[in-house]
C-alpha cells in the first residue's frame, strides 16, 4: 500500500485514490526525429530495483498529474513534486542520496 502526498491538494492519498502514469521525465521525440530516438522514446524504459521516478494522477481527487519518487523494492515513498518540471527537485534528490547512497536512475546519481 502506497501513501503518496499530492503536491496540489496536500492529501496523503492512498494508492486506490491515485492512478499510475508510468515513468517520469520522458523527453518526446516525434515526427522528424531519427529512428533511434523515436524507438527509445516509445519503448525503452527504466526498470530499476530501487529508486524510481514516476508520474501519478490524483484521479479520485483533485485530478492533477504530479511526479513521485519511490523505491520499487521497499515501496518507500521519498516525496512528490509538481509535474511542471523536467527533473526532480534538488532537495528531493539530496534526501534520496542520503537514504540510498549510490543510487542511479538514467543519468541521475
Amino acid at each position, binding site marked *: 500500500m502506497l501513501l503518496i502526498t499530492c503536491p496540489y*491538494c496536500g492529501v496523503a492519498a*492512498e494508492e486506490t485514490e491515485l492512478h499510475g502514469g508510468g515513468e517520469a521525465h520522458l523527453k518526446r521525440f516525434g515526427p522528424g526525429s531519427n529512428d533511434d530516438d523515436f524507438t527509445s522514446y516509445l519503448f525503452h524504459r527504466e526498470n530499476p530495483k530501487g529508486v524510481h521516478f514516476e508520474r501519478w494522477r490524483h484521479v*479520485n*481527487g483533485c485530478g492533477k498529474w504530479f511526479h513521485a519518487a519511490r523505491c520499487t523494492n521497499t515501496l518507500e515513498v521519498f516525496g512528490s513534486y509538481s509535474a511542471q518540471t523536467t527533473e526532480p527537485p534538488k532537495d528531493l534528490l539530496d534526501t534520496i542520496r542520503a537514504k540510498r547512497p549510490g543510487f542511479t536512475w538514467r543519468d541521475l546519481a
Partner: protein
Amino acid sequence: MSDVALALGGASFEGLVKIEELAGQGMVTLRGDLTDKAIAAGVLDVFGVTLPSTRETVFAANTGALWMSPDEALLLCAYNEAQAKADELATKLANVHALVVNVSDARAVFQLKGSMLREVIAKLAPVDMSPDAFSPGMVRRTRMAQVAAAFWMDDASTARVVCFRSVGEYVFNLLSNAADANASVRHYST
C-alpha cells in the same frame, strides 16, 4: 420545488445515521485560477462568498463554495437560482480565463445526519475521518467504494455527500448498507 426531477425521488434511510437525498441543491462549477483576483471578486459579487483555500469550504446564508482543486471550485446556492447565478458569473468573467457551468442536475446530493456519520463515511472512503484529521469547514474529494464522490461536514453531526447523478443509486445503496443499524463498529465513538 415539485418540478425538480431527483435521481432517486428523495430517497431516505434511517440506521446509524439518517440519509436523505436532498431536494434540489443548486451547484455551479467554476474552473479557473482560484488565486485570480477578478475571479474571486466575481464570485463574491454573485454568490456572496470568498473563494475557499485548499480543501476548505466557505458558507454564507444560503450559498457556499467548496475547494475542488487549485483551479476548480463548486459553488452552492438555491436550486432555482443556479442557472441565473451561473449566467451572471459567466458574464462577469467573460474576459477572464474561466468556465462557469450549472451542474445542479448532473449530481446527486445526500445529507447524512447523526453522530455515527464519521464511521459511515470511513467505511467507504480512504480518508482519515478522526475528528483531528477531518472537521467541519473541510471538504474532501475522493472515492466511495468504486465511484468518485466528495463530502463535507456542516457541523459535528451533519455531512453532505455529492456524487454524479448516474451513480446516485449506487452511492445511496452503499451509504445505506454502511449505515445499517446492525453494522456499527464504534471506531470513533467516545
